[in-house]
């Protein structure tokens, strides 16, 4: 990205760099092994460092997940037999089967070795490979939280831009207040209110949506797609309502920071319409902190939303994590924790890697 000091170029391809007063760091150098090569090398080194950090973090997660969940009280074997009459011999045999009779360190080395080959073990309560259970529930979670993510990000950016641009006005105060109020509302409570109001129906409002689940069952083709969409409305609205405030506030504050900048004054001085000044000049630069937040939020999409998934009986990873913790189903808990953490680490690393491309001042 370049920022040319020539104002005439300011409304050309791409937004100006932050602090438009400076030209590109590489300007004026033209040898073949010059700025680009050096920049590329520096960037690659930077990326390698970030990737190295990610690998270390993943290993830390692996270790933490194993030992952390060993602290959960309870005897999985006793939980699994569900209060049935089991002899001491049977309990011992089950402990042996699940490797619970070994020392904690021996269990840890077994676990680490297996994870490196992609084997997270077998769920105690579902008698199925952990990865099978995770991949079974992942699509439902991605569909719900992914849709909500796209919507609350777009709404947050759009509203954040407008509230900042009309800072202090009635619209700003109303939108910011509403967003903060919804942000503070417990999501499960809002979900239940929506169920009572729009699923069951109240007063003149008819019950329009299903009370829960992902599908009615028995539908195929386009009818199935629409049926799923129908079931998604209320949980998505719940997640968007409690989720968009964060993006709105970050976008709003970073745009407010940009609004006093000289390059905007210059743009206005050129006679550009206010709408264009905002869209072409202010917003692209104000987007940088929001992009970081978007990646962080994207990492959490995989983890689903335990409370909202529970209220709407959504068959995703959030609910699976809850049922795994209640046993405790150690292999499943560890597998889920590892997947959630990996998603967050990967997204943060991706943000780190992409950020210098958006803002040349980073990573140099």
């Amino acid at each position, binding site marked *: 990205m370049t920022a040319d000091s020539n104002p005439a170029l300011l409304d050309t*391809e791409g937004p100006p760099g932050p602090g438009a007063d400076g030209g590109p760091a590489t300007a004026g150098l033209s040898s073949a092994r010059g700025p680009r090569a050096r920049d590329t090398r520096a960037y690659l080194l930077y990326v390698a460092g970030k990737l190295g950090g990610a690998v270390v973090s993943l290993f830390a997660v692996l270790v933490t997940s194993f030992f952390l969940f060993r602290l959960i009280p309870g005897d999985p074997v006793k939980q699994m037999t569900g209060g049935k009459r089991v002899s001491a011999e049977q309990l011992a045999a089950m402990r042996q089967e699940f490797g619970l009779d070994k020392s904690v360190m021996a269990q840890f080395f077994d676990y680490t070795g297996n994870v490196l080959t992609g084997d997270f073990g077998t769920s105690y309560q579902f008698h*199925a490979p952990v990865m099978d259970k995770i991949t079974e529930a992942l699509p439902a979670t991605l569909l719900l939280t992914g849709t909500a993510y796209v919507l609350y990000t777009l709404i947050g950016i759009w509203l954040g831009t407008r509230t900042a641009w009309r800072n202090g006005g009635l619209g700003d105060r109303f939108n910011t207040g509403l967003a903060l109020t919804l942000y503070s509302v417990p999501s499960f409570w809002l979900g239940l209110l929506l169920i009572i109001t729009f699923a069951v129906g109240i007063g003149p409002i008819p*019950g329009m949506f299903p009370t829960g689940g992902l599908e009615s069952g*028995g539908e195929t083709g386009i009818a199935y797609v629409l049926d799923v969409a129908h079931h998604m409305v209320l949980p998505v609205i719940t997640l968007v309502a409690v989720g968009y405030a964060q993006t709105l506030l970050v976008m709003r504050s970073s745009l407010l920071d940009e609004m006093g900048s000289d390059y905007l004054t210059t743009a206005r001085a050129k006679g550009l319409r206010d709408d264009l000044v905002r869209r072409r000049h202010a917003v692209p630069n104000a987007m940088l902190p929001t992009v970081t937040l978007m990646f962080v939020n994207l990492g959490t999409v995989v983890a689903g939303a335990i409370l909202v998934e529970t209220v709407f*009986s959504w068959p995703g990873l959030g609910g699976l994590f809850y049922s795994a913790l209640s046993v405790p189903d150690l292999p499943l808990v560890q597998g889920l924790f590892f997947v959630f953490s990996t998603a967050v680490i990967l997204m943060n690393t991706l943000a780190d890697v992409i950020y210098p491309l958006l803002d040349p001042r980073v990573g140099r």
Partner: protein
Amino acid sequence: MDTQDQHGRTAAPKSTAPRRPHGRLRIALAGGAAAFTLTAGLATPLNPAPQQAAAKADDGKKVLTVAVAQSVDSLSPFLAQRLLSTSIHRLTYEYLTNYDPKDNKAIPGFATSWKPSADKLTWTYTIRGDSKWSDGKQATAEDAAWTFNKVMSKEGTATANSNFVTNFKKVTAPSPTKLVIELKKPQATMAALDVPIVPKHVWEKVDDISKFNNDKDFPIVGNGPFILTDYKVDQYVRLKANKSFWRGSPKFDELVFKTYKDQDAAVSALRKGEVSFVAGQPALTPAQAASLKGEENIKVNEGPGRRFFALATNPGAKTLDGEKFGDGNPALLDKRVRQALFLSVDRQAIVDKVFQGQAVEGAGYIPPRFADYAWKPSADQELKYDPKRAAKLLDEAGYKKNGDGKRVGKDGKPLDFRILCHATDPNDKAVGKYLKEWWGDLGIGLKVDCLDDVSVPWYAGEYDLAFDGWSVNPDPDFVLGIHTCPALPKKAKESAATDNFICDKKYDELYDKQLAEYDPAKRAGIVKQMESWLYDSGYMNVLAYPNAVEAYRTDQIKSITTMPTAAGNIYGQDGYWSWWSAVPADGKSSSKDGSSTGVIIGIAAAAVVLVGGGVLFALRRRSTAEDRE
């Protein structure tokens, strides 16, 4: 992003095409998201009336939908432990015997009759000839023998039903209608073997039974009143009526167990008519029941429950070898102290205030719905609420009140107890507050320890008292067995079958005697003696028998059998009576949350056109605006 060429020159500005591709992309994305939301939103029939379910879905099927909170742990009868899974197995496979819904007595199931040998060690079952598997093959004694032998084998030690076969020596099928089970020692529970019989010709092809969940190939071959046709994890289990079931076909065409992880959402679904029945988990709360009682077309069913809710005392934890461990208060080793605690608990107040009337006052160990085994103390024996008598007993035991009103032992130590409470159970916490008050009046201190998981201090014997509770089966053998000496742990602090470390020679003798007694009336007499002993010991103070509280729509279900039939529960019965007997209400449609597909598609298409048009208009407007710049 970087617009410099390889020589470091900055690219010239484009003089044409002022519209930026990513701007268009952004609008397209926004349009797409909006289209999706609108589509979803509009894919919604405005339907103010609750969907009158039942009796006919779009295809004319009569569907009964049951809202359940549990997940299926496994659809394999060899692995399933949870109530939902075992209830489904009750509906899809036959068991040797069933329980009469009127009085819980054993009645024919897969077996038409059964009798023991003179030495009590061999049981012979006659297997019915009119039961067919859903794939058309005849179900025989060979299937039953194969099932029991598979449970007895060590393949997959986590088998669900191994407790039924620990005393089996040999199981054979000399003919298609004859099953013979040889025992190591006499066992009176042979007409209460709750083991689903599976088709040998299907299951013998399974490679590893310990990893096979029976949830891939539908319909699943069975011979119960229903056939399992579809299952989606944490969404629903769908069954269809088995028209050739030997006892007669169910009246509903389909039975669907639909997952609702939130009980309030399930109640909302019932109110709307999306489901026909809501199973309390374990019961609807008093508030939920009260809110449903006034609703049109909804019946709240309150029946005597199968659970007891009790206070257990730590009698001094020890291993099988007699090694003592834990730190239970030694004052509780004195029967007079235990009985004083018993006498200072107002059980009726707990039923009225904590359970808000949705329970029956506790007495004997086995709930009154199991009439053959239920026992009540005589007037002389009863330890009813009597704080004065409790104070007298404590004085006799050497725990007198000091100047501060505190009870102190001969060693000068105040009498203080700890009680383990389940943090997840509001009843524990509420009763804990009453106990603090009642025992405080007596001069006894109480600390209520509420934990998410009480099992660790419990198995370690590190408690004085604990809130306890069990679901009781028609055959009481299991709940009696958890208080015998062989149930104690092998090693200190290791989990075991024991409930709370009770070990008494007299009780064990009675336990062995009832297990070897094949005469039902005599056996019931011995069981009652055991309950009497438990009551006097003060080890288990049964406070209440919580009712089963559930609700269903009368415009979808015309009639349904409870168990016991006179007044009982519907969900989680010992048998398939409720769902097998349920009669659809006339002329209504069945529970269905779907909507008219044609209407949805029409509205959704209109929405897409509308939004698409809007996006195009925005793009055009923007391009002209940019041309004007």
